[in-house]
């Protein structure tokens, strides 16, 4: 929780002024019994009506000042608390945004969302309460005691005894019952567990006819919970009666002592009334304080949970000391020049292994291949064979456990994440669109994209036709999650979104699954045409190596197509067949049909009927 307090730093002034005005208000509140005592002693005793009127005006004045102070305090407290929460949310959002897939997988998005919303709100309330009340209550308690001293030292001694006694009772009961509340929580957790268990296992329970047993089981735990609750209830029910006895006992003692002191002529009747009033004020404040402490505890718990999110560090981090984009095209040229192929290797995997956080075994083992610029690479394999894992390594969504991934000859770890992801266009399996117009969604890849460029991308993605029929065309409002579009439409839009970016490397991660074969085929042809712009081949041949290759490379797009359909990848320049995280075969469709057993099986199963 402590670390979160830095978010109050911009509100130092408010954090100080808030409680200060609150104390000011409390001070005026403490004067009220004295004024009333004056009314009784001076006004009533000497029948001085103008005096009474003056004193009453003084009371009203005190009330007005109190009101002003209090409103000022509330304003500062609210401003500081809200500012705190705003800063906290900003930092939290930005922190979560920096987390890599690995941490997101472990923590879970729903937890993160709760932290950002309800937990932050709880902390905001806590801060607000603390600023408003935390100083006030003790101040009034001790202030009342000091005021009592100014009236009469001996009578004030009763306060000296009462306040510690009250504190012992109030906080004693709290300290006894808070651990007991944990017991209640445990009993409640058991009840919750059984409820959950019976929902998740409803089939098994019914299959075994265990309903009655389960009900009995639940009753026992429920009964236990009730017993614990009643027990704790009994203890905390002591709070009110005990404090009542102490305060009123103190009042009895005050009246008696007061009587003795008045009899001796040391204090007046009105002052006895004032003493009694101070005593009543103390009770109210102590109860407030106890409630406050419970609320603060809750807020601290939430604060600690938030702090733990801040403690998560992104596992994928940019290298220190490397200026992003510091390496120019010439270097790329040299690296590629050293390779035997004339064209530079756009993507190069060398002996890559990957173990996901929390998993024991490698999900990818010894993946080793390279793809040259402009090449179309198909990746095929069964579910769980590691197809997505391979392509996720290219934009560095995860970091390799062993080996390395290079883009244009440089390790992906040497790029800044921004630069790296600028180069890669990813079309994820799950077609996600965001709330906003189609145009806004398309500009995710390139904020400056013109309508013309967007239409071009939509053309390639086979999406123009349906976008044109939508009301408003590019201005058509997409609902959250793209709910108002069909699965196939969403998929084509996500493809277009990646194309708008004009990436050097396009990754289609099983992203045509919702498309029919004909559309899928058209899409592939269009992407192929885009990857090999007319004339690029010729220009490259003319310019030769070095800068020329790089210029051509800028226009050429390397495409990765992940699919379970052999038809989607069979025309790729190179096909990688994955099996259980390993490369089972690599080559062109023709080569693989001859050499790779796994590929043959896949192909046969999907084509035997259709082509023979």
């Amino acid at each position, binding site marked *: 929780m402590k670390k979160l307090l830095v978010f109050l730093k911009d509100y130092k002034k408010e954090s100080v002024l808030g409680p200060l005005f609150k104390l000011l208000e409390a001070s005026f509140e403490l004067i*009220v019994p004295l004024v009333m005592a004056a009314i009784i002693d001076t006004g009533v005793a000497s029948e001085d009506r103008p005096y009474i009127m003056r004193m009453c005006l003084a009371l009203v004045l005190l009330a007005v000042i109190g009101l002003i102070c209090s409103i000022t305090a509330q304003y500062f407290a609210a401003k500081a608390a809200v500012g705190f929460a705003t800063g906290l949310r900003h930092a939290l959002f930005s922190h979560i945004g920096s987390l890599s897939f690995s941490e997101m997988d472990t923590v879970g*998005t729903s937890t993160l969302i709760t932290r950002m919303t309800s937990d932050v709100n709880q902390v905001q309330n806590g801060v607000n309460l603390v600023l408003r009340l935390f100083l006030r209550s003790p101040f009034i308690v001790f202030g009342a005691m000091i005021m009592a001293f100014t009236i009469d030292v001996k009578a004030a001694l009763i306060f000296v005894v009462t306040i510690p006694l009250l504190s012992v009772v109030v906080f004693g009961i709290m300290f006894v019952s808070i651990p007991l509340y944990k017991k209640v929580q445990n009993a409640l957790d058991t009840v919750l567990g059984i409820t959950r268990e019976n929902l998740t296992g409803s089939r098994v329970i019914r299959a075994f006819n265990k309903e009655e047993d389960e009900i009995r089981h639940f009753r026992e735990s429920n009964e236990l919970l009730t017993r614990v609750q009643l027990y704790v209830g009994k203890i905390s*029910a002591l709070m009110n009666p005990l404090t009542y006895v102490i305060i009123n006992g103190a009042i009895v003692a005050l009246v008696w002592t007061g009587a003795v002191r008045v009899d001796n002529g040391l204090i007046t009747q009105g002052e006895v009334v004032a003493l009694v009033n101070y005593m009543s004020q103390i009770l109210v404040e102590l109860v407030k304080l106890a409630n406050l402490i419970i609320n603060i505890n809750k807020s601290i718990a939430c604060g600690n949970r938030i702090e733990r999110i801040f403690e998560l560090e992104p596992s994928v981090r940019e290298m220190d000391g490397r200026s992003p984009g510091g390496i120019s095209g010439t270097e790329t040229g040299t690296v590629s020049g050293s390779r035997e192929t004339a064209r530079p290797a756009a993507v190069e995997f060398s002996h890559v292994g990957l173990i996901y956080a929390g998993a024991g075994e490698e999900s990818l083992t010894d993946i080793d291949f390279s793809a040259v610029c402009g090449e179309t690479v198909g990746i095929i394999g069964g579910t769980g064979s590691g197809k997505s894992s391979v392509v996720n390594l290219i934009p560095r969504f995860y970091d390799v456990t062993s080996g390395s991934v290079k883009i244009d000859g440089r390790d992906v770890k040497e790029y800044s*994440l921004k630069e790296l992801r600028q180069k890669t266009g990813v079309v*994820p399996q799950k077609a996600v669109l965001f709330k906003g117009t189609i145009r806004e969604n398309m500009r995710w890849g390139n904020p400056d994209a013109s309508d013309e460029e967007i239409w071009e991308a939509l053309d390639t993605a086979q999406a123009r036709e349906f976008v044109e029929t939508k009301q408003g065309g590019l201005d058509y409002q997409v609902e959250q999650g793209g709910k108002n579009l069909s699965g196939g439409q969403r998929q084509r839009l996500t493809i277009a979104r990646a194309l708008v970016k004009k990436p050097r490397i396009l990754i289609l991660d099983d992203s045509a699954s919702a498309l029919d074969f004909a559309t899928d085929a058209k899409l592939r042809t269009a992407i192929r045409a885009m990857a090999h712009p007319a004339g690029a081949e010729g220009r490259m041949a003319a310019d030769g190596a070095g800068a020329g290759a790089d210029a051509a490379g800028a226009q050429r797009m390397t495409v990765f197509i992940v699919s379970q359909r052999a038809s989607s990848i069979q025309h790729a320049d190179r096909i990688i067949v994955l099996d259980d995280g390993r490369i089972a075969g690599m080559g062109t469709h023709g080569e693989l049909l001859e050499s790779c057993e796994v590929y043959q099986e896949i192909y046969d*199963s999907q084509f035997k009927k259709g082509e023979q």
Partner: protein
Amino acid sequence: MKKIVSGQQKATLVKVLRYIRRYWLYLGISVFLAAVTVALTLYLPILTGRAVDLILGAGRVDFDGIFRILRDMSVIILFTAAAQWIMNACNNKITYNVIRDIRREAFEKIERLPLKYIDAHSYGEVVSRVIADVDQFADGLLMGFTQFFTGIVTIFGTLVFMLTISVRITVAVVVITPVSLFVAAFIARRTFDMFRLQSETRGEQTAFIEEMIGNQKVVQAFSHEKEAQEQFDEINGRLQKYSLRAIFFSSITNPATRFVNSLVYATVGVVGAFTAIAGGITVGQLSSLLSYANQYTKPFNEISGVITELQNALACAGRVLELIEEDAEVPDAPDAKVLGEADGKVELEHVFFSYTGEQKLIEDFNLSVRPGQRVAIVGPTGCGKTTLINLLMRFYDADRGIIRVSGIPMRDITRKSLRSNYGMVLQETWLRSGTIRDNITMGKPDATDEQVIAAAKASHAHSFIRRLPEGYDTVITEDGGSLSQGQKQLLCITRVMLCLPPMLILDEATSSIDTRTEIRIQKAFAKMMDGRTSFIVAHRLSTIREADIILVMKDGHIIEQGNHGELLAKGGFYAELYNSQFVQA
């Protein structure tokens, strides 16, 4: 109450009162003691006032009188404290017993709900109704008892006591008090819009957070973090503005009402002092009035908070009551037969079924399984293989058609006896928290240790159970804790092995099981299936080949039916599936 409680809440309130009625005795005591406590609490300032009246000045103190009053006060204080304590205890008793009853009923309903309900609702939602909503309701109920009721009694009690002292001052107080309510209402009206703006913006922000954090992969893939942050900050900034307004203006209520209270206090002071001078009241009575002026306004300030809390509690109660009132499974027919040991014959005739009514799944499905036959259910993932299990176990009822077991229509058999004739091992292994033995003996609670061990040996689970820290008494948690997926599956098999019913429903695991365990599971399955009618959701080629009947499912429909040879010859979907999925395995 009319304005505070809407029609729907009223209905809920009536139902809640029905639960409370069972504890009418406690309720009676509580109400009586509340009245007593309030009356005595209010009487105390009068006594204090009288004592003060006996302290007139130096040498003019009536110690005997004061002593008598203080003695009375002491007795009253102790008595009040005792009454308060008993009242609190009664309130606790009512509250906790009522929520216990509600939870119990809710749980019992869960056991009797049609699986359709359970499948259609997220577990979290149902759990939150039974746990969180009931808790919230308890808080509200307790608060209602302790604050709402006593608050109202206090207000009226104070008025009565004040009237006994001075009519004039009471009238003055009564005239000013509505100002406090008016001010509170005024501020509440003004802040309502700000709260609405705040919660709208908060909703917008939550939606945005869900969208961005939920799809962080896409955000990062497009390096959209900066834009997202900017957009977030824009919403965040608006939220800051609206929150500040909402919180600030609503927090004015408290100082404002306290200001009105101060005015009441000052009024009592001035009117009281004038009356005292005129001889209408004594100084002691004035001090009593002053303390009343403080007490009187307090419940007013609290009551608006209490009402919100109560409305919230009623809303929560409504949610859990909704669950309790949900329709239970159609009960067994009154003349339903108890199916003894089934012979293993299962027939489906013209069966139609769909989950939603719109999307038809199983249409005019016919199947006849002779005793001892093996039926393999095959299809790509997500094709609805569990639908058939749902129908066979009668987790769901077919829309049309007849399913016969041992020649008797399923609807004429009690669910209990039908289900006990099936042994079921699902791929999603479900173990309950408890010992290994508890889990194994689920279907046969009176099984002896020898029988348990024999079953475990038969299912090849004995060797790993023996190696667990406490053997058969090892306690496992809900999700099986440290057990591997394969071990969990072995336990589920042992569970069935122990009772060995005449018909089996098995779900082969697809993955995450090591080869050695896998072989054991295969062996255990084979042993169980021997001579029993079995339905197997099959992934393994060998299982499928050996099946007497193969049902091929796709998108929830049963599209082909026959044995391996027939289906391959047919060259349909099965042939395609067989070649694509199973040849590799």
